[in-house]
């Protein structure tokens, strides 16, 4: 009680003071999405990234797109501000729990140069720092084929934002350093250490050009991945090459990089946007190349749009090249001996994470009210046969490799 009283007193003093001040130093705002997604198959579930443990199938899901963000900016001095953002969305267990997405202090060194420190949005993609703000984007969700490549969205560290007018054009260069960790579905845990990157944009009227590069020391592991590498090293005591392959494939402080170029044209009527990206890692997390292109045209409050996105895996053949003795028993089923080298190699190859899929989307955005946009989107996702994809396959389901899946989405995005 004695602890609560000073707080209550502080609040009762602060609230009227803030309300009376001609211009409050605190600025509250928020954004959110309520979305419902359904597909035409129960073979696997459609999700928006590697963190979601479940997604949509023939039964509709609210979890693919729904989220709520709340932000407060405190401007304590004309040159000093602090920003905190809390985001509520399904986590790696599928639970809606609030998380501190951002918490940074910003100091304007000059009108054109600011320094930020704390937890900051990672500018890995063209729209990565507002990928969660549906209202600011044309689609129901950023193209999954491309945006699922990097499951981290923030980092703890510092950045500089330098903005320079070049005639009527604007150049923005944002170098950053930091680190972060991230939890993904199915007990996967990741760490990105020694993160160093730069994000640069150049705006020429309606045209925005963007290039970015990020490198990290990547660790991605889970109890089952650890067991698998342990098994490889056990085999390595008898068969040459296996221990070296385990060292080469294990994502333990391995160099990884992500680079991308992108452009947006938005003249108020026509919207054209595209990105090309490359993920590279020296581990079982596979190298990928992905891109998308979107075109939309506004007719008053309606904007129909079409989009195409694609991702390809650059196959890492480290596991393929391992020497394996002929099997003496099956890997699964009756009488299985899953510890045989051939079974471990198979498990390793299926653990390699990447995707080979493409998505064609058709949609329409309707600015229904001044701060609410409604969108209806149809996606046709084509998954390569014999390859991985970003769907999640529940135990006992056949998966969607080699199949085409139709996805239907209705979302309401709002800002306040």
């Amino acid at each position, binding site marked *: 009680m004695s602890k609560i009283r000073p707080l209550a007193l502080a609040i009762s003093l602060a609230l009227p003071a803030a309300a009376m001040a001609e211009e409050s130093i605190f600025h509250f705002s928020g954004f959110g999405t309520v979305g419902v997604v359904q597909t035409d198959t129960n073979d696997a579930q459609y999700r928006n990234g590697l963190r979601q443990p479940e997604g949509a199938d023939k039964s509709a899901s609210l979890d693919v797109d729904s989220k709520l963000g709340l932000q407060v900016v405190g401007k304590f001095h004309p040159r000093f501000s602090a920003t905190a*953002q809390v985001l509520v969305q399904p986590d790696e267990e599928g639970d809606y729990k609030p998380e501190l997405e951002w918490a940074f202090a910003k100091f304007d060194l000059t009108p054109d140069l600011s320094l930020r420190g704390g937890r900051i949005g990672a500018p890995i993609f063209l729209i990565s720092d*507002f990928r969660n703000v549906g*209202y600011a984007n044309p689609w129901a969700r950023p193209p999954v084929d491309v945006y699922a490549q990097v499951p981290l969205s923030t980092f703890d560290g510092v950045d500089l934002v330098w*903005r320079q*007018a070049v005639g009527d054009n604007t150049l923005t260069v944002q170098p950053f350093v930091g680190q972060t960790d991230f939890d993904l579905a199915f007990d996967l845990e990741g760490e990105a250490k020694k993160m160093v990157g730069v994000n640069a944009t150049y705006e020429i009227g309606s045209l925005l050009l963007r290039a970015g590069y990020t490198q990290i020391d990547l660790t991605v592991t889970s109890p089952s991945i650890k067991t698998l590498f342990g098994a490889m090293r056990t085999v390595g005591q008898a068969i040459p090459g296996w221990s070296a392959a385990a060292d080469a494939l294990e994502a333990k402080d391995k160099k990884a990089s992500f680079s991308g170029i992108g452009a947006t044209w938005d003249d108020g009527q026509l919207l054209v946007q595209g990105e090309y990206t490359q993920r590279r890692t020296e581990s079982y997390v596979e190298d990928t190349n992905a891109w998308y292109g979107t075109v939309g045209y*506004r007719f008053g*409050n309606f904007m129909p749009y079409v989009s195409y996105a694609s991702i390809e895996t650059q196959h890492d053949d480290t596991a393929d090249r391992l020497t394996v003795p002929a099997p003496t028993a099956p890997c699964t089923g009756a009488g299985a001996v899953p510890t045989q080298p051939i079974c471990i190699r198979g498990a390793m190859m299926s653990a390699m994470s990447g995707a080979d899929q493409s998505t064609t989307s058709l949609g329409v955005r309707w600015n229904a009210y001044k701060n609410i946009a409604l969108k209806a989107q149809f996606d046709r996702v084509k998954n390569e046969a014999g390859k991985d994809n970003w769907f999640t396959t529940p135990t006992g389901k056949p998966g969607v490799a080699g199949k085409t899946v139709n996805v239907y989405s209705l979302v309401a995005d709002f*800002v306040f």
Partner: protein
Amino acid sequence: MNQRLIALAALLAASYAAAEVAVVVNPKAGVDSLSQEQVANLFLGKATSFPSGGAATPVEQTDGATRNEFSTKVLKKDAAGVKAHWAKMQFTGKGTPPKEVGGSGDVKKFVAGNPNAIGYIDKGAVDGSVKVVGSF
């Protein structure tokens, strides 16, 4: 018939003239003229100072015909487009939208009393208390 057409044309011209928007600054700001891109950059948070180097404080009008006119002609976006732009800026920590101070009269008063301010008003509302740096 011809007379009627001329009358209609005059009426249309008058209504267009009335809808013209004047971008105004404080006479002490030391700014002579600004291009549409320069004004747009200031009002969209892409620039924070005048080309001459002085800090600029843009002020918006509350929703209405003059604001729509300004958004369409100068910012090249409709109301939802401007809102979406600020959602991006705000939720990436890059800036907050300009303060809304009211109609043409309120903006004029604010600009006249604040050397860093830049606003826009209906062209008919212009007087000696503010300086026009662009008409759109």
